[in-house]
């Protein structure tokens, strides 16, 4: 596969259907890759479990209980998944608002990832709802629970998915060869970006605000009225670490789609992202320290929960923060990638702490995820990767846009990218 897409000539619905049918076919050389061999059985099992769950109720495949109403479907799929999707709004801010051209090359892949993360991980919420058919109640009709943080989060998820779809839609138009549609969609980008950043600010923090009313149930080391701010700030480096991580894998898997300019500028992009991560993590750590000091929790620090807290804050925030700093100074890409992995682990632990682990830490019988919950979670993750792969293999996400869609003359563009890379 080379760096350009073949633009189809679609003039009628018949052409459209024919093109979609042709493009539905798998693109890989062999279907028996390691990833497919693992993901397909897991997804089949996951789908069976999901069907069973909708017939027999939530307890049939989960360990949820009256004491632990939220498990990893919320704590991991939604809380962590959405934090990891934060890279989209941060990159959009830098590329479309600050106009830092350097990051332009990766903005599409990131937005696509963010969009799919919302569709799948926020979509996983439906599995967790006891009466999912009522999910339309807060959207339509007169059932507006305006005083609910969850109402806000639900609306923002919906609107943000639309905004991200608008942001990524020019790629769809380029794939289908819809030139005029692309021009219109392109003109909507800045609006969608600004709307999207605003929504992200509010719902990233809103996810944290959900736990404000669990005051008596969350361990004092984790509960704070500043949870929303912490969630927002941590979504910045969570999202960017995901971008670094995802980019590393994409480059391996889809390397043949990338042109030389992209590959040359890519190291600089990763180092730039690492620098922002380090900054955001330092701010986050500083906030954590302030909250800790004001909370006067010195004594609880010397308990098992205290050690766990230190593991999270020192081991999975401060240390990766220094790793990022060091790596940026030495231009050590390997170290940046390791720092990103540690950071992501820290985010997973943090979100799970607030929603599951430090939640009712005093309970005699604590929740742990059931086999069915883990399999369905993996199903959601794999399904997202499948769709991501399908789109990347067909649309100009990583590869360059088709000739007709480029705003500038190719030589100018190349010149600019090379200059940015320096």
């Amino acid at each position, binding site marked *: 596969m080379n760096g350009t897409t073949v633009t189809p000539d679609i003039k009628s619905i018949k052409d459209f259907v024919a093109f979609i049918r042709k493009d539905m076919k798998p693109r890989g050389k062999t279907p028996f890759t390691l990833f497919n061999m693992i993901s397909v059985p897991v997804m089949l099992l996951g789908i069976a479990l999901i069907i069973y769950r909708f017939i027999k109720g939530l307890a049939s495949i989960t360990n949820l209980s009256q004491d632990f109403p939220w498990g990893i479907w919320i704590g991991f799929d939604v809380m962590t998944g959405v934090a990891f999707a934060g890279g989209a709004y941060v990159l959009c801010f830098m590329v479309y608002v600050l106009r830092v051209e350097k990051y332009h090359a990766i903005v599409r892949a990131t937005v696509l990832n963010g969009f799919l993360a919302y569709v799948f991980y926020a979509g996983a919420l439906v599995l967790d*709802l006891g009466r999912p058919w009522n999910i339309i109640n807060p959207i339509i009709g007169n059932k507006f629970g305006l005083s609910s943080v969850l109402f806000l989060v639900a609306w923002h998820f919906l609107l943000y998915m639309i905004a991200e779809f608008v942001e990524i839609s020019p790629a769809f138009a380029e794939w289908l060869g819809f030139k005029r549609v692309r021009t219109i969609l392109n003109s909507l980008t800045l609006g969608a970006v600004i709307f999207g950043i605003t929504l992200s600010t509010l719902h990233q923090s809103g996810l944290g605000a959900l736990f404000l009313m669990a005051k008596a149930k969350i361990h004092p080391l984790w509960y704070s009225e500043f949870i929303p701010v912490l969630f927002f700030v941590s979504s910045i480096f969570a999202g960017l670490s995901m971008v670094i991580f995802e980019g590393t894998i994409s480059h391996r898997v889809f390397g043949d789609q990338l042109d030389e300019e992209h590959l040359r500028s890519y190291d600089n992009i990763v180092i730039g992202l690492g620098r922002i991560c380090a900054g955001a993590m330092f701010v986050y750590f500083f906030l954590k320290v302030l909250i800790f000091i004001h909370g006067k929790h010195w004594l609880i620090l010397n308990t098992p929960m205290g050690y766990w807290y230190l593991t999270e804050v020192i081991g999975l925030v401060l240390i990766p923060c220094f790793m990022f700093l060091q790596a940026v100074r030495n231009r050590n890409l390997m170290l940046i990638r390791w720092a990103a992995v540690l950071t992501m682990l820290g985010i997973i632990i943090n979100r799970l702490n607030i929603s599951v682990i430090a939640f009712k830490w005093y309970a005699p019988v604590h929740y742990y995820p059931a086999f069915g919950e883990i399999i369905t979670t993996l199903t959601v993750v794999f399904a997202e990767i499948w769709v991501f792969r399908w789109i990347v293999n067909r649309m100009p996400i990583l590869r360059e846009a088709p000739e007709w869609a480029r705003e500038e003359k190719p030589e100018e563009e190349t010149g600019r990218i090379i200059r940015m890379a320096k």
Partner: protein
Amino acid sequence: MIDRRKFLKVLGAGIGGIAGSTVLTPKVKAAEETGGSGKELVSVLVDTTRCIGCRSCEVACAEAHGLPVPEISDEANALAFEKQRQTSITQWEVVNRFKTEKGEVFVKKQCMHCNQPGCVAACLVKAMQKREEGPVTWDGNCMGCRYCMISCPFDIPKFEYYSWNPRIQKCNLCYERVKEGKQPACVEACPAEALTFGTRRQMVEEGKTRIYQNPDSYYHHIYGEYEVGGSSYIYLSAVPFEQIGFRTDLGTTSYPKFTTGFLYSVPVVLLLWPAFLLGVSQITKREEEIHGKGGKK
């Protein structure tokens, strides 16, 4: 015209809210006595010094709401009191026995019917409602997100995990009876006058009167008068409340207040953030034009 002071106040609250702080939000009026339309809130005063542990209230509750009726023979009661029970999807209320410094005490447990309930503020579809008479009730608009369970300081809402069409089960303070001016079933069934029903104003007064008249037989506190902003169920006890299974660390702030700071900040962020971003975008666009895009520089 926008009142400037009011505007600044909203803005201030919003900025406070952005910081996630609840400092600028007004102090809660702890003991509210009236519901939405000025109607007096109803209340049940539970005097645990009078309760004999007969569990007649459990039977009456089950019968009134079509739940499985428990057996209340002496043997059945002895068995039931062996361990601490929680309310469940088939038991909207339970009576527990506590061994205290002043002997055995029986305590009825059910929804407290908070004046400003966390569960109601949590519900995004208004399935959980605070009725103007005082009861907190649940209905079928529910989408089963269980955020009410997360937000309830007393862990009262119970969810039917084994059903394809699950409901939340909890005490509704016999809303269907209270609406008609009748007493809740449990109050009517109590043979020991441990439960008294009336307006919240009356019940708080009644509780205080009992404490004043018999200062030695009561612990001088009415649980639920101020806890989490006050509730419709209020309790009297002979011993400190932690000895009979109550959480005394919940504070007097009503639960919805914990999120108001954040919620106030939402419209402010929605207005100011896009304006700020657009401004920045304009500046960077100019920069780009001045310094030239593409080849020339």
